[in-house]
């Protein structure tokens, strides 16, 4: 293993496992500032994780092993996704491959585990939220695949390293398909991170919640794992956005710095959108995603009309 891949492996693990909780903390902090409040410290998620890790887990009566296993499955699939995702264009070989579609599958596994746990408790809040999440996922996954098909166009590969390399440099920005893909992926980011206008991460009000719903019955270490997994999801989606659709290039060290700056900038963008957008009616979110799909298709056709790269 060369020095570069060793550093990349460290960033992958340390970044994904340890720095991920910083991202939702940063978004909340920046949002507070933008709204004229002082806002919680960016380190608040770490404090919460520490508090939760010390508390006892609670098994609701009548639940099975599926309820107990769900947080571990969700966290494990997020952990595996971290290993698939290259940083700075370099992906160490964990013999798990670097395939974009496997990443999509791991997200699906987490969704399935959480949905099943909500049924296990039978709680109305969890099920309401899960049924909404699964409904949105139908459209988000279709859009995500269209965006992946767009990103694949210049390289003909779903290997995330190849995709990152293809999006580097400035030449690709002269092609409209890349712009269309970037905008469409922004919508996927909003859905997958559970941010406004799709979901409201600040509330437990049943009228609005999606992501918080199935978490209500969990406590202690279970809840800590689920909250860490949500933070890791922020990390994965934002790094993916930076890898595939934000400008990068240069040596590995330069790319790492670019990645860090871009992820922070994306957190700022999320905070900005949350401040300036109200939550959308849930039934209108599929229309928003449909608009993204139409944009992706326009980009797709433009690639063929404008001539291949």
């Amino acid at each position, binding site marked *: 293993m060369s020095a570069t891949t060793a550093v990349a492996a460290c960033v992958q693990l340390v970044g994904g496992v340890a720095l991920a909780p910083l991202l939702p903390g940063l978004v909340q902090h920046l949002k507070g500032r933008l709204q004229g409040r002082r806002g919680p410290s960016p380190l608040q998620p770490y404090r919460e994780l520490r508090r939760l*890790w010390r508390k*006892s887990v609670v*098994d*609701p*009566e*009548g639940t*099975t092993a*599926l309820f107990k296993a769900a*947080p*571990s499955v969700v*966290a*494990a699939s997020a952990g*595996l996704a971290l290993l*698939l995702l290259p940083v700075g264009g370099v992906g160490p070989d*964990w*013999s*798990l*491959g*670097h*395939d974009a*579609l*496997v990443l999509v*599958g*791991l997200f*699906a596994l987490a*969704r*399935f585990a959480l*949905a*099943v746990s909500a*049924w*296990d408790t*039978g*709680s*109305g809040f969890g*099920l309401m939220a899960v*049924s909404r999440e*699964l*409904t949105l*996922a*139908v459209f*988000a*996954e*279709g859009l995500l*695949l269209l965006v*992946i*098909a*767009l990103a*694949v166009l210049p390289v*003909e590969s*779903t*290997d995330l390293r190849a995709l990152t390399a293809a999006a580097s440099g400035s030449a690709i920005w002269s092609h409209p398909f890349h712009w269309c893909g970037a905008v469409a992926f922004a919508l996927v980011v909003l859905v997958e991170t559970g941010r406004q206008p799709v979901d409201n991460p600040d509330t437990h009000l049943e009228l609005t919640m999606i992501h918080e719903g199935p978490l209500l*019955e969990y406590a*202690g*270490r279970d809840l800590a794992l689920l909250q860490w997994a949500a933070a890791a999801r922020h990390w994965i989606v934002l790094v993916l956005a930076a890898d595939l659709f934000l400008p990068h290039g240069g040596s590995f060290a330069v790319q790492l710095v670019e990645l860090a700056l871009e992820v922070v900038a994306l957190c700022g963008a999320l905070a900005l959108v949350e401040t300036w957008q109200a939550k959308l009616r*849930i*039934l209108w979110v599929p229309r928003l995603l449909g608009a993204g799909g139409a944009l992706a*298709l326009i980009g*797709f*056709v433009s690639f*063929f009309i404008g001539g291949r790269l």
Partner: protein
Amino acid sequence: MTALEAVAAVGAGALAAGSVCVAWRPLLPLALPTQALGIVLIAVSGVAVLGGAEPLGRGFTDRATPAFGVDGLSGFFLAALALVAVPSLLYARGYLAGSARSRAIAGLTGAFLAALVGVLCARDVLSFLAFWELMTLVPAAAILVGRQSRSVRRAVYVYLSVTHLGGAGVWISLLVLAHHGALAHPGALAQAGAQTQTVVALTALVGFGTKAGLMPMHSWLPRAHPVAPSHVSALMSGMMIKVALYGLIRVLFTWLGAPPLWLGILVVAIGVLSSLGGVVYAIVQHELKRLLAFHSIENVGIVALGLGASLLFAHAHEPRWASVAFAAALLHTLNHAVFKALLFLGAGAFERATHTLELDRLGGLLRRMPWTGWSFLVGAAAIAGVPPLNGFASEWLTLQALVHLTAAKLPTALTGALAAAGLASTAALALFCFAKVTGLVLLGRPRRDETAAAVESPVSMRAGMAVLAVACVVLGAVPALIVPTLAGLHPGAEPVARGTSVRLPGTGALPSLPLLVALTLLVSVLLVARRAGASGRSVVWACGQRLVPALAWTSAGFTKPLRLVLEPALRPQRFAAVRVRDGVVQEVEYHAHVPHLFDTAIYRPAVRLSLRGAAVARRLQSGNLRAYVVYLLLLVLLSLLLARTGALG
């Protein structure tokens, strides 16, 4: 006769003996094991051919003399058949015990298996068509023997009429192929011209597609599959519709010659329609077996996506991806056969224990029937396309094929991108549906006393389901061991590397075994960490009240957001009546259901139109002798006129 041929012949003999021996009551316990032995022997010879041995028996012939043989493709389908049939027969041993018609059903099961083997091994048109029709008729008999009611007879009537009308397509395409001598010499159809090729392709799509349950020719499937005895449902959904796909593969890939562009796009379009349409209608079902039947339509659609992609790659001269897409379709065929059979067997076990399949009346069965429940859960996760199980492996491969279609010209590329998005949405919908099924059937509290009193199934039924559940995990762990073999079955095959991960150029690899190991390790570490802390028990929070069964979520409630979003497409019908007396609401009546639009918009008008046409034609049959004399006279005059003008030659 080689040794392998002898093995296959002994197997066929055992299968026949196992079917016939039910006629004599003392031999009844031997019937199912003998059938299982027969199917295993046949599959052994099939696997040997698949593994590289010389094809057995005869090759395809255009003559009308009976000929039988096994080549690689037949071998693969025979192996899949055995993988489904043996657990189903094991299950049937417990399932049929004590039932009134067990002898007849056991005999018909064997006959059904024999018909399936016959279609797969037939090497001439007449035996193929004979076994093809048997394959349609035998399960109809098994359904009618198993249950007698008006609605079941109606379902069988629709099944037979739709499959026979559509089945005409099979006859036409095969007879045209035989007429041009294309069965024995696959290049021969190309000389017959593009029009003949079009006719053969379209009739084959209609004929085999009807039997496979592809939309919009699927109308019979959700009616017939749910009413059959469960192990017959498993064979129908697991294998019968796959044997139809086998026929389609033979025609489109071996006998048709170079595929035109429109054919690939058409097959992909049918695949998208079937997969999305099937799963959307599955989600709004409230009866477990009917829901599973709609999922068969979905999965056949996914197989069609792989086949269509392979045709498009062949058209674009990309032999490597053409064989990968072909392997994806075959792998999904095998995977779907395994998990769908498992789910149907599980449904049968639940029905036996609770006397209902209404999703809203089950619940809490994972505790009461742990073996059945956990096996069913594995099947549900597999069909939901969740890694690291087998459903994910083949959906991943199919998605890869579709995404890589974007390397071609615009029409093909756009087809690939749209189909990939459609398949991703299908997978998300299937996950939605099976989260619902798992929750309503296995988890929560029982919704009725009868469900609460459910007891575990007998050992043989449990064993049948457990074998299939293990197969789901194993096939998910090592798809890379079989994908190269399957890719080798494509006529223009290019070799694919064998190993523990599916490594294809242009992908980031699907390391299924390492993924399985890593996932298991991580989950167990986290579970240990969780257990290390303190734990407590509590009631579920429901705003301060006890969570009673009346508060339990229903199937309709869970899918409500999706139905609202899809309202323009699904057109659900609602009826609400509120009875108010003295300003106080006394009673609220509410019904809602989602009509099957294919039935209301296509089939019902078609039936009405043909009945009206028949009414008009019936006027000719007045029964009046003088009218018939006039018909004859007119016919003679017409013939004379035609002869006079020279039209008759």
